[in-house]
């Protein structure tokens, strides 16, 4: 007797098949309906989570920063090398700019006396009475200064400013289409086959109501049905419906079979298709309604299976068209941002608290390919900080109106002049006239980002992009408020800023070429001020609408 290896004995199991219990299909159907809902729910939850996170984060950071602030204030003297020089708003803005540009004078002021001198210089130079707010701060490390100067010794400080920030950027990724083709591999119970898409060997379909229960070779041999009689390989076989059931339509059956035979002879799929369609058109007249429907289904099915290559080409063409058509995208957006100071730097001895602001703008994006895109735009953004418990003297009640003092008038409160002093100076003054208030500083910019965007996820209608780049900003508004009253501008603010940005865009297509997006972002401003600390790091969350074309 012939000897066999164990593999040979089990070789018959290679194509083992067994008909699954009938209830399994209905269970699969149930499962197929569920996931889509889940996906949508997940998407909405993700969007909601992003929104919530974006809104909560600034608040969390704000509250976590507050205790430090209190602690520092209670701690009394603080080391600080910040100097804030506020330039008072005057009717003539050019005068302010003139003052601002005279940085040498402002920065090198070593004492209030010097400042007084400077004041005179300004008056002489500009010909306009100079009203200046100056904050002189004692460097508490310098004990000599503290002792020598009753007020303060302004020390120009070159404080390394740090911040990180969100930059918002919308990204758009073209979506490839192509879904339908592969889904329509098989259409109905009528005979339908492909020698390309599904199996390499012939697959012949008959009207199949039951699966083969016998564990015979099925797929590999491409025999699926008890009705099959045609066994030609590498050919299409359009078998008719069950002839025993549909004997009355024998003419139709014959017609189908002739169709099948034509198809069988032709190896070229496209030719097959043409012939089939042509013949089917002829047959349509003689077919019953049912047959017509079945034939139409066959044709549809055939489109899905027989011409995958053609379909692929079409898909590619379509994709290319989309790429060409939808390379550009324009978005409008608005959002909230919160400026932070990650280094806990201080102004006037107090911690710079976060400050929330709004931002808005437009941007455009150009898709280089499916993954990469570049973008730019214009954005109005505000960088700010709050300094709580800032000590100051007002001129109205200031008992120190000595010639060498340094009172400054405010345009908003003309009757009052302000002298902001640091914590350490406050200790030195020990005056009852020293008041405390909240100092708010806002710098508003018009920014132009330049970003690159990479698509990390793009499926169906949703996409997620990572964006990074840099931006240049022009100062358009500079305001300092003390307890809600504007007292001037920050002289150290740079007219032009630059920084870096990192963001992520979660986008969902709501209608044709229109998308909505949520965009958590962070921005880092490298040089908002010349020589003092300022919140340079900005979190942001933008919401927007994006249209591609």
């Amino acid at each position: 007797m012939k000897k066999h290896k164990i593999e040979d004995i089990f070789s018959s199991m290679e194509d083992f098949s067994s008909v699954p219990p009938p209830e399994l299909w209905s269970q699969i159907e149930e499962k197929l309906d569920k996931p889509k809902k889940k996906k949508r729910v997940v998407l909405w939850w993700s969007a909601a989570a992003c929104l919530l996170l974006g809104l909560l984060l600034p608040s969390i950071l704000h509250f976590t920063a507050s205790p430090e602030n209190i602690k520092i204030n209670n701690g009394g003297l603080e080391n600080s090398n910040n100097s804030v020089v506020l330039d008072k708003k005057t009717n003539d803005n050019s005068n302010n700019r003139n003052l601002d540009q005279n940085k040498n004078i402002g920065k090198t002021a070593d004492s209030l006396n010097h400042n007084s001198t400077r004041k005179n210089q300004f008056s002489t130079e500009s010909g306009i009475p100079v009203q200046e707010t100056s904050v002189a701060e004692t460097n508490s490390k310098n004990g000599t200064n503290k002792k020598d100067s009753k007020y303060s010794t302004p020390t120009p400080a070159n404080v390394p400013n740090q911040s990180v920030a969100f930059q918002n950027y919308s990204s758009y990724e073209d979506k490839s289409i192509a879904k339908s083709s592969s889904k329509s591999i098989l259409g109905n119970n009528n005979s339908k086959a492909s020698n390309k898409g599904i199996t390499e060997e012939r697959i012949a379909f008959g009207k199949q109501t039951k699966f083969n229960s016998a564990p015979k070779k099925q797929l590999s041999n491409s025999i699926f049905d008890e009705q099959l009689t045609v066994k030609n390989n590498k050919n299409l076989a359009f078998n008719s419906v069950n002839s025993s059931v549909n004997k009355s339509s024998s003419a139709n059956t014959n017609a189908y079979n002739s169709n099948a035979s034509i198809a069988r002879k032709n190896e070229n799929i496209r030719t097959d298709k043409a012939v089939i369609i042509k013949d089917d058109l002829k047959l349509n007249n003689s077919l019953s309604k049912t047959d017509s429907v079945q034939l139409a289904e066959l044709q549809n099915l055939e489109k899905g299976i027989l011409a995958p290559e053609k379909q692929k080409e079409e898909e590619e063409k379509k994709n290319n068209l989309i790429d060409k058509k939808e390379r550009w995208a324009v978005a409008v957006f608005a959002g909230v941002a919160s400026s932070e100071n990650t280094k806990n730097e201080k102004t006037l001895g107090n911690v710079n608290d976060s400050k929330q602001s709004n931002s808005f703008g437009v941007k455009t994006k150009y898709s280089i390919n499916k993954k990469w895109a570049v973008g730019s735009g214009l954005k109005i953004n505000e960088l700010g900080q709050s300094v709580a418990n800032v000590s100051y003297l007002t001129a109205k009640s200031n008992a120190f109106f000595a010639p060498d003092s340094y009172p400054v008038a405010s345009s908003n409160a003309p009757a009052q002049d302000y002298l902001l002093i640091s914590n350490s100076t406050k200790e030195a003054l020990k005056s009852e006239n020293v008041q405390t208030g909240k100092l708010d500083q806002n710098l508003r910019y018009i920014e132009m980002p330049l970003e690159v965007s990479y698509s990390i996820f793009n499926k169906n209608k949703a996409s997620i992009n990572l964006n990074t780049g840099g931006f240049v900003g022009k100062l358009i508004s500079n305001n300092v408020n003390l307890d809600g009253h504007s007292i001037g501008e920050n002289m150290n603010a740079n007219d032009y800023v630059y920084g870096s940005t990192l963001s992520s865009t979660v986008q969902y297509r709501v209608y044709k070429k229109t998308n909505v997006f949520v965009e958590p972002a962070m921005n880092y401003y490298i040089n908002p001020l010349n020589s003092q600390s300022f919140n340079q790091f900005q979190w942001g969350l933008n919401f927007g609408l994006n249209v591609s074309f």
Partner: protein
Amino acid sequence: MKNDREGQLKIYQLFSPVLYGICLKYMKNEDDAKDVFQEAFVIAFQKISQYKFEGSFEGWLKRIFINKLIETLNKKKKESFFLDVFDPDTDFVEEEELEAIPIEQEKLLEYIRDLPDQYRTVFNLYVFEKMKHREIAELLKISEGTSKSNLNRAKHILQKRILSIKNFKTA
């Protein structure tokens, strides 16, 4: 949607016997095989758009099913069940050539399913899917040695079962 479902049903009708057969070969009991069968079909239909007409559709479906089967087997035994390391001294089994006895497929299926999970998986992949040990090792995240060891042990067990039939028949 309706058309999609009809298409899905057609695919199911065409391929389910073979795919269900695979599930039966990989899973020890029928309930587990049914579960994996359902889940794998759902995955296949969800990912059908990813089929790029490269290779046969049946092959694409089989890959999905086998991946799902292996994933399920791995989950079933939280600890890796491919811990065995090939020991050439003990694991090398001289393959005995057996007389060709006609054995029913049901019986052969029973023998396969009686194998321990780890042996059965490697045996199926090697013998039926024609995978090489390197590919099996990569798929199962085991060493090639372990793959060889598991295959040898599987063969050894099956050999014994076949011989027992032979002895039973001759007796």
